[in-house]
């Protein structure tokens, strides 16, 4: 298990970090739109905000090629835009409009899809991505492609039995998987320490023989560098694992008042906001704060426009439910 230290940073730290900053800002602006949809009740399902975890999501996705496979998790939306999905399609899914990536069936957090960009969907049952990513990675290997299959999941999902089944097989077959555990310390109201007897997920991946790294998930650049290494390992046939220690700033879902959680802990989490941390580092590297404000304003404008565009799209008619079951 290797901890990524800041000294391994590449030469173009500022350029890379700016790229990540933009993706974090885009993901956050997109989620802010979704929060409004929840408030105005134009989206009625559960939304699991990713606030606090956008840095690691952007950092990993920036290390993937556009044809690498992605099985994202339910915790926010930064994965999707960072992998290249059109936010109009994502918001179209939340609005249940035909422009959505599911072409009107609706989605929100899970089920958004974009095969052309390697976004292979997501299921509502946690822990199903372990086996699916192993299968995608097997296809890539068997067909002589160089794609990796990247799967995100939480500390809670890492306890599923599928982790072990897919993990041992990925190791046995040398599959190009990159598994990214977003360890935010909570599964709804359950502390990982209380229900798993540990705060650390990585040792179990290391025991399976994965190339394993533990990284500060609030440091987008550190995650990015770990991900570049993980992807290289996976492409060479060594399954790779990253545990990103992260913070869930908001509740489990939008509207969760977190009565089970200590206020001070939430304050600490807020103080480790990945957008602020990346911004602070950029300013220290000489970036003009006004330029950062500009990036955030552009992200907000982009997502507002995407929302307007999605709302222009028609709702499907009832016959839509009978389409797409069979190939």
């Amino acid at each position: 298990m290797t901890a990524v230290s800041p000294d391994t940073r590449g030469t173009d730290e500022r350029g890379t970090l700016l790229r990540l900053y933009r993706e974090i800002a885009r993901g956050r602006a997109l989620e802010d739109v979704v929060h409004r949809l929840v408030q105005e009740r134009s989206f009625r399902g559960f939304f699991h905000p990713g606030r606090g975890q956008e840095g690691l999501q952007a950092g990993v996705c920036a290390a993937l090629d556009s044809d690498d496979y992605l099985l994202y998790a339910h915790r926010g939306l930064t994965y999707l835009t960072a992998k290249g999905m059109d936010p109009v399609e994502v918001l179209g899914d939340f609005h249940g409009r035909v422009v959505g990536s599911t072409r009107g069936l609706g989605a929100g957090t899970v089920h958004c899809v974009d095969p052309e960009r390697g976004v292979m969907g997501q299921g509502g049952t946690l822990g199903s991505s372990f086996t699916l990513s192993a299968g995608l990675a097997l296809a890539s290997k068997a067909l002589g492609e160089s794609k990796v299959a990247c799967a995100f999941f939480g500390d809670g999902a890492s306890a599923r039995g599928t982790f072990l089944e897919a993990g041992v097989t990925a190791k046995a077959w040398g599959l190009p998987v990159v598994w990214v555990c977003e360890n935010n310390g909570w599964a709804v109201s359950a502390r990982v320490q209380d229900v798993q007897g540990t705060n650390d997920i990585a040792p179990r991946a290391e025991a399976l023989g994965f190339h394993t790294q533990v990284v500060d998930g609030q440091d987008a650049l550190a995650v990015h560098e770990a991900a570049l290494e993980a992807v290289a390992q996976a492409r060479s046939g060594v399954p790779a694992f990253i545990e990103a220690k992260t913070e869930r700033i908001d509740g489990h879902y939008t509207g969760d008042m977190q009565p089970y959680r200590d206020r001070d802990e939430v304050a600490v989490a807020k103080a480790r906001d990945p957008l602020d941390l990346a911004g602070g580092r950029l300013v220290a590297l000489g970036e003009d704060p006004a330029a950062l404000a500009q990036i955030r304003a552009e992200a907000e404008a982009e997502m507002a426009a995407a929302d307007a565009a999605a709302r222009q799209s028609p709702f499907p008619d009832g016959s839509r439910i009978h389409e797409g079951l069979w190939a």
Partner: protein
Amino acid sequence: MTETKPITYAWAINHAIDEEMERDPAVFLMGQDVGRMGGVFGLTRGLFDKYGAERVRDVSIVEHLVVGGAVGAAMGGLRPIAEVQFADFLLLAGDESFHKMAKWRYMHGGRLSVPMVVRAPCGIQGGVGAEHSQSPEGHYWHTPGVKIAVPSNPADAKGLLKSAIRDDNPVIYFENRRLYRNKGVVSPDPDLLVPFGRGTVARPGSDVTVVAWSAMVPAALEAAEVLEREEISVEIIDPRTLVPFDMETVAASVRKTSRLLVLHEASLTAGPGAEIAARAADELFELLDAPVKRLAGADIPIPQNMALEPFCFPQTDEIVSAVRDLAKW
């Protein structure tokens, strides 16, 4: 079609896999002991030597991975044939089969495809008990998004498996272990497919229609022989696939006989026969002269004691008497 020597149902399955692997390099097999050993029932013998470890993949005790990995591999461009050692074990991979395999395409707007086959050896045989003897086709018939094949003889076993492998949808292929040694003439033509959704008349007759599939077809044929001596003429319809289900062939038969018995090995209550009986009541009411009858497995877990097995699923004499009762109407 060249006449050949009869081959077993088991060997017909082997031939189907072999021919499809030869035809399409995207087809591969995975499961426990499918490699060097050639399968616990010997069905995959020779394939490891011919195609190697990359295409005939042994796995550990990982049913979730076998089915979920097949879903992923199928989405990624392969055509997996996933083998579970017993159909019962498919239920271990409940999330992967009910949720991932069946729903992944639809949930994602029809934009992904999952062309895969699960081979599921089913049926009561050999004293292997409650967790190695089930025929769970009804569980999956109740799950929109999977096709279901239930072959009853070697020719259909081969032709349906080849169709399943070529299908762009997920298919569960239930192969009944009691049929493995049954022999029949099978075309060596590698392009001969048995289409899904087309039932067949396993035996023509005029008095009573019996719908039966899998190992219940030979049992029904035996019963029909007995009944013929009593001048009761039985028509046996083998739907061959449950999804899609060929109701037209059933209707055409009931139009002649006006009497319908539905027969299956899986337990009776809320079983697959209930669906067929309900459809018959709904769609064929005016053709019927008698209530639709079901004869099916007992509503119990299968005991380990082999001597009790015959009490667990319809036997020839029970089929005979059920048909006799119907013929009285």
